[in-house]
């Protein structure tokens, strides 16, 4: 099995992400599996940023700590990361004079070369050329890539880029005993898929029939809006930048009331401002999907880092009680499916659904041999109303048939106050009790539709996790297996309401260890409360960085 990690680092604005994008795409098209993570600061230029790309001939869904190839777009990258490079590893790029790493080093001035070609913008392609050369990849795919990307800018630009690619390659030739020669795994373009979490969330909305997305920019959720905006005209989606998050969620609720599938996305601070609107959706029984892309807090915290710290907040957000659904996708493909399912449940039960993302999920890119879209969007559930239509009819299953204004003869009356069946505000306490029961009772039916956690057995211990940590848990399980430890995995992506039988599953899970990216073990506490079983072994990380395979392994060994 091939398993290679390269890290490209530089200052913000230098093009780390451009290099990574091109490289990932080329490696992917050569038939490899790719997994990448992004690390950046809350600034636009300068500072330090990196992308870490791992590729393999088997599917991979986690990041490693050890680096095989370090690409330094600036000298700072060398200083910061050379310690992570394995002894047999290679470092290329802006190496301060007389680099002292134990690894093989090739100093290359990407920008200098680019200037020779005519413009500093070519530096990124020069870097790609060098990297591909180090790896021993065939250059055809890269050339093709440049053609498609720069084709519409004219043949001259394409030629210049191809020249840059070549120059990058030449910097390596002869200067390095190339230890690698990764081949194309398939002779033609493969059908591997590469997708970031944010793209997955956006694509899910697209496929679910989302017609209205209103949001206020906030890292790390903004990518969802970028994605949907890029598709808005083609598919007829209104994407509106709201003046604040309060407007964003109220717009989404209004749009849904009028018949459009609606979503909004934000991060914790923005979600705070949406909590009143969340209750509005619940009380008016208006379907809505909300993405909360977590980052470390409290408050502004570390705006570009990752966290799983909002779980308890979204479980209880907004005053008083109402049914809701909370999902936390594990990866891009799961994100697509979870968002479709979110829209479906929201539409069917007329409840708000919250999707917990995080910076790690949002910005990471996942690759798949085949892309499985398991969920199908539900047909619209609103009816054509009759004259005497009652929006909040009390029915046996708690679901009042939903009408929308303009479709039928009836009037649709929705109210954030407690209301009667017609929708008019009431202070009748008997009606209040019935309405509150009607709403709350939906939870039992929803519970039947929630998927069970992923269960992999292991007699020695059970790794319990949720959301974006799936990949690292699976890989850690494998490593432990090789070391003779049989670790089970119990991983949740559908968090609330929990489906029936989870208690039993927990009961027969040996030595549970709950792994999550927050201080106090919110998911562990949640399970403890639901099932009254102690979950004292916990691994918590709250430095804003994702779990890396090696670190997590160590921590697990520390608690078992």
């Amino acid at each position, binding site marked *: 099995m091939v398993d290679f990690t390269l890290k490209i680092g530089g200052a913000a604005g230098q093009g780390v992400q451009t290099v990574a994008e091109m490289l990932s795409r080329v490696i992917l098209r050569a038939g490899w599996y790719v997994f990448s993570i992004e690390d950046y600061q809350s600034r636009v230029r300068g500072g330090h940023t990196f992308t870490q790309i791992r590729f393999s001939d088997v599917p991979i869904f986690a990041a490693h700590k050890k680096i095989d190839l370090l690409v330094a777009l600036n000298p700072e990258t060398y200083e910061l990361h050379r310690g992570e490079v394995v002894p047999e590893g290679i470092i290329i790029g802006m190496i301060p004079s007389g680099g002292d790493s134990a690894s093989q080093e090739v100093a290359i001035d990407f920008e200098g070369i680019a200037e020779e070609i005519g413009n500093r913008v070519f530096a990124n392609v020069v870097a790609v050329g060098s990297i591909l050369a180090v790896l021993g990849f065939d250059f055809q795919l890269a050339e093709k890539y440049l053609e498609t990307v720069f084709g519409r800018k004219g043949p001259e630009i394409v030629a210049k880029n191809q020249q840059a690619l070549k120059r990058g390659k030449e910097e390596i030739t002869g200067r390095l005993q190339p230890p690698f020669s990764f081949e194309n795994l398939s002779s033609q373009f493969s059908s591997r898929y590469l997708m970031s979490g944010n793209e997955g969330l956006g694509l899910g909305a697209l496929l679910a029939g989302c017609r209205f997305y209103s949001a206020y920019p906030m890292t790390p959720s903004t990518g969802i809006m970028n994605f949907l905006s890029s598709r808005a*005209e083609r598919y007829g*989606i209104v994407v509106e930048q709201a*003046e604040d998050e*309060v407007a964003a969620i*109220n717009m989404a609720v209004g749009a849904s009331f009028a*018949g*459009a599938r609606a979503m909004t996305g934000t991060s914790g601070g923005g979600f705070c401002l949406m909590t009143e609107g969340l209750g509005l959706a619940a009380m008016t029984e208006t379907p809505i999907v909300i993405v909360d892309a977590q980052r470390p807090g409290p408050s502004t915290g570390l705006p570009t880092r990752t966290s799983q710290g909002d779980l308890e907040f979204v479980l209880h957000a907004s005053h008083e009680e109402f049914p809701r659904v909370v999902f936390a996708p594990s990866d891009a493909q799961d994100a697509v499916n979870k968002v479709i399912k979110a829209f479906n449940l929201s539409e069917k039960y007329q409840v708000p659904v919250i999707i917990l993302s995080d910076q790690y999920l949002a910005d990471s890119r996942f690759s798949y041999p085949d892309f499985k879209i398991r969920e199908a969007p539900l047909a619209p559930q609103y009816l054509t109303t009759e004259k005497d239509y009652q929006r909040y009819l009390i029915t046996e299953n708690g679901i009042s048939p939903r009408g929308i204004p303009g479709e039928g003869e009836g009037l*649709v009356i929705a109210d954030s106050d407690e209301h009667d069946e017609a929708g008019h505000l009431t202070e009748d306490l008997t009606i209040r009790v019935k309405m509150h029961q009607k709403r709350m009772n939906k939870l039992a039916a929803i519970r039947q539709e929630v998927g069970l956690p992923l269960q992999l057995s292991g007699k020695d211990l059970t790794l319990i996790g949720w959301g974006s940590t799936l990949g690292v848990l699976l890989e850690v399980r494998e490593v432990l297996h090789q070391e003779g430890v049989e670790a089970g995995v119990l991983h949740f992506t559908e968090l609330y309401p929990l489906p029936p039988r989870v208690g039993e599953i927990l009961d027969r899970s040996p030595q549970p260890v709950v792994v999550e990216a927050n201080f106090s073990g919110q998911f562990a506490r949640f399970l403890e409360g639901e099932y009254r079983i102690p979950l004292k072994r916990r691994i918590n990380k709250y430095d804003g960085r994702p779990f890396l395979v090696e670190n997590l392994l160590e921590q697990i060994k520390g608690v078992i």
Partner: protein
Amino acid sequence: MSSPFDNRLEIAWCPGCGNFGILNALKRSLVSLGLEPKQVVMVSGIGQAAKLPHYLQAHVFNGLHGRSIPVAFAIKTVNPNLTVIAESGDGCMYGEGGNHLLHTIRRNPNITVIVHDNQVYGLTKGQASPTSDFGFRSKIQPWGNLSLPFQPLSVAIAQGASWVARAFSGDLEGLSKIMQEAIAWEGFSLVDVLQPCVSFNRVNTYQWYQERVYYLEEDYDPTDRVSAFSRSLEWGDRIPLGIFYKEEKPTYQEKNPVFTQKKDLIYREIEKKDIWEEEKSHFI
């Protein structure tokens, strides 16, 4: 005068409240415009004024305090066939919801915003509202309101609202006419309605208003932004009513390419088979 917009819900306003005039004028203008209840969506916030939608026949979204405008914007956007009116109190629209007013003006959706401006918080029992006069006394401002009044018309004109008017709930005829024109207007329209609150506003009474209000002159030119601004500052012994400003501008619907490309109502086009087939290539 009965109308298809009448309904029979018990009205919870105080006897003599200026809200009744607004309700009557609104029903009248909807009838005059030849609208049917099922074509009209009333969106409101929370407060005494915000109860109005329940007192007529129409679709209703009675949402959160301060948040009627974004809801109305979205409803109109999703279904442009509907006539969408956001109405609520001065506290709701100018206080809690001030930011939405500011920014929705910039989008120019084809909705009408009606503000019951009683210069007081009615439902919460008499605190100063954004438009309360300086010095207005209440339980929580026993020393008198320390803030200068919010200037709804001036601010709307400053923001480039496409249609701005002030009316008085004591003049059914005038109010109905203004409302009718506001609703018919293609674009964002704001009607600030002076509305006596007989329970909590002992300053700005029917009489107080009646002694001061007058209509802008026949030859007043509502297309001049600067003079509209200048007239909007007039307040005190004489308070002008009427249409202060209008300017035709493309509506949100006209500007958004989604609507120029899609002809049916956007929400109806849910079933996009094969989106994934179209999308696939982007992820390879």
